[in-house]
């Protein structure tokens, strides 16, 4: 009996769900701007998506809607933003399908980006094909520069390796007299690219790369790598990877008393959770960044908006301001265009300058111009991720060599 009830129940649920799929059609009157996104709400990419672009679009959308929305001249009124978010499960095939659905079936007004460099590569051509403006968030790579000329509708907001970061790092280290570097990188697009660009830029400043190895994802044992790096006696240790590499590599470095003169890690060091994890021991560790609160009034305002009264873990000093600026550009482009016509907005985005948290901001050949960046290299100093490079944007002096790891606080 129970069996039958349950069986009936499953059938019922399935049928209802299928019916829901058939009968709810998405018809939007023009009293709002519908923005569609395929985001990794579940699956392996969720970790990145949840801490990178999500807090930004949530806060930003709330703020804009609190002001009534975006003024569009064509309609003579402010239109609030409505988000239509699908879960791509971190699966590329699903993401491309959902992007297609957002554009073709749901006919959303705008598309916001999916998460991850590979996803950018796959989504950009689709958006471009349909003539949808796409300002990317998480993800960017040298490769994308070669693609952009053929993708006029795509704009890249995030800074990346040779787009200023590694050259600045090399220069900083070179100036201080670093001679050798040991690089370990995650075996993926990100790692290959950063280690590759380092291979070009470091020698320009007299730094020889004396160790280079890739680490596949899900590697758990970092002791042999740290031991090898320690034995090499390199001045600089680079861990170009994600938190799953950078955090254990830091912990292992501390435990094995490995104290290179500079310790630089990929996306992980720039997050608040890096500091909350290691506390004062994070002192002197280098990472990639974009801004510090003390840099400008606009920066301070953004810090307050995003981080005030929230746990420090969610801070992201690299991506957040760039995504925020990207959204500001998008809003201002709509206002300047006075229409929701993608073609017109694209023209505005490609040619005009906007005023964002970064100051004057514009896109050059589809990339956010180098001149707009307010920082590239950061360093933890007294609990703050200070901008130390390029020197013109620095909020603190680059400390080299970094102090040795302190003993962790006794509990």
């Amino acid at each position: 009996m129970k069996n039958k009830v349950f069986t009936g129940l499953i059938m019922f649920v399935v049928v209802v769900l299928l019916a829901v799929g058939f009968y709810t059609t998405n018809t939007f009157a023009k009293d709002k701007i519908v923005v569609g996104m395929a985001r990794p709400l579940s699956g392996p990419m969720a970790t990145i998506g949840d801490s990178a672009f999500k807090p930004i679009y949530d806060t930003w959308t709330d703020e804009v809607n609190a002001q009534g929305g975006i003024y569009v001249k064509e309609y003579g009124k402010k239109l609030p933003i409505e988000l239509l978010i699908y879960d791509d499960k971190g699966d590329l095939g699903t993401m491309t399908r959902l992007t297609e659905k957002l554009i073709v079936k749901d006919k959303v007004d705008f598309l916001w980006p999916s998460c991850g460099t590979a996803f950018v590569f796959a989504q950009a051509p689709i958006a471009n094909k349909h003539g949808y403006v796409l300002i990317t968030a998480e993800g960017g790579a040298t490769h994308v520069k070669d693609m952009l000329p053929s993708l006029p509708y795509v704009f890249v907001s995030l800074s990346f390796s040779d787009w200023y970061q590694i050259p600045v790092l090399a220069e900083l280290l070179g100036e201080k007299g670093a001679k050798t570097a040991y690089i370990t990188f995650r075996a993926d697009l990100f790692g290959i690219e950063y280690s590759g660009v380092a291979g070009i830029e470091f020698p320009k400043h007299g730094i020889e790369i004396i160790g280079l190895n890739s680490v596949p994802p899900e590697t758990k044992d970092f002791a042999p790598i740290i031991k090898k790096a320690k034995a090499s006696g390199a001045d600089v240790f680079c861990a170009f990877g994600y938190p799953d590499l950078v955090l254990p590599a830091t912990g292992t470095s501390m435990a094995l008393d490995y104290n290179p003169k500079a310790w630089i890690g990929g996306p992980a060091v720039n997050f608040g959770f890096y500091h909350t994890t290691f506390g004062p021991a994070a002192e002197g560790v280098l990472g990639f960044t974009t801004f510090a609160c003390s840099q400008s009034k606009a920066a301070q305002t953004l810090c307050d908006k995003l981080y005030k009264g929230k746990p420090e873990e969610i801070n992201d000093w690299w991506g957040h301001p760039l995504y925020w600026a990207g959204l500001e550009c998008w809003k201002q482009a709509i206002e300047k265009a006075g229409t929701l016509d993608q073609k017109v907005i694209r023209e505005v985005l490609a040619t005009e300058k906007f005023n964002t948290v970064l100051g004057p901001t514009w896109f050059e050949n589809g990339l956010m111009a180098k001149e707009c960046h307010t920082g590239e290299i950061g360093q933890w100093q007294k609990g703050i991720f200070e901008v130390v490079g390029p020197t013109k944007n620095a909020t603190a002096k680059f400390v080299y060599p970094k102090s040795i790891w302190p003993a962790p606080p006794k509990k």
Partner: protein
Amino acid sequence: MITTFLDIVISGLLMGGIYALIAVGLSLQYGVARVLNISHGEFIMIGAFGTYILYKTAGVNPILTLAICGPVLFLIGFFLYKTLFKILLAFSDSAEIFEGKSLLASFGLLFIIQNIAILIWGADIKSYSFLNIGVDLGGALFPANRMVTLLFAVVISMTFYLFLAFTRMGKAIRAAAQNPRIAGLMGVNINQVLALCFGFGALMASFAGGLLSMCYPITTTMGMEYTVIAIIVVVLGGLDSIVGSFIGGFLLGIVGSIVTYIEPGLALVAYYAIFIILLLVRPTGILGK
């Protein structure tokens, strides 16, 4: 050279302890209850998050937390078996059908648990630092948190081993593992024993999660990664042997450590290669019958 080699082997052993701990619970669940629990990693994840939350909010020592999270997960595991898997067992004509179905059911569980965890804790990275200091062993340094993990892995498993060897319940479990039908005839309440085993598996997973969270960042989506490690280790050691889990864990740890020292890019390739070769040469694992 020899010291370097020793050094590598010892750090491999330390990793092996972690691997063994990850796998021991699964070996119990499969060895006795015949459930190849794909959601094993989700239990590890819950254990890890329990530890993290208690440490961050109340400052509870992660090692103490083991005693809190363990029993909770034991109960969850116990009742999961009592409801879900017991019904599956009753509906299955043969052991093989039950194995297939329970594997898929646990795959569904993975989805459910992970989604609930994301709803509660979000999907972002959590991390804290505990015992990140080196311990000097004859001139070479080793991370203390990994040594603690290895120590606990050995202590917990030894305790469990003794429990299996000398208590009435332990004997019932072993009897059930060897032959459920006959054990049933001998008056062992078989369903109770299987549920207990599943519960103990979840308890071990919780311990593993708690200890892991001292060494690695944790996320609500990390489960599958650890399930895969557990499966590799358990297959290496023999699907139904607790000692086998240790042998599998140490083997994986040492091979991984050596390969990582030579060429880190090949570490994961080496794991899967040993795994696949062993399955071909000795499908029942090193200690399997």
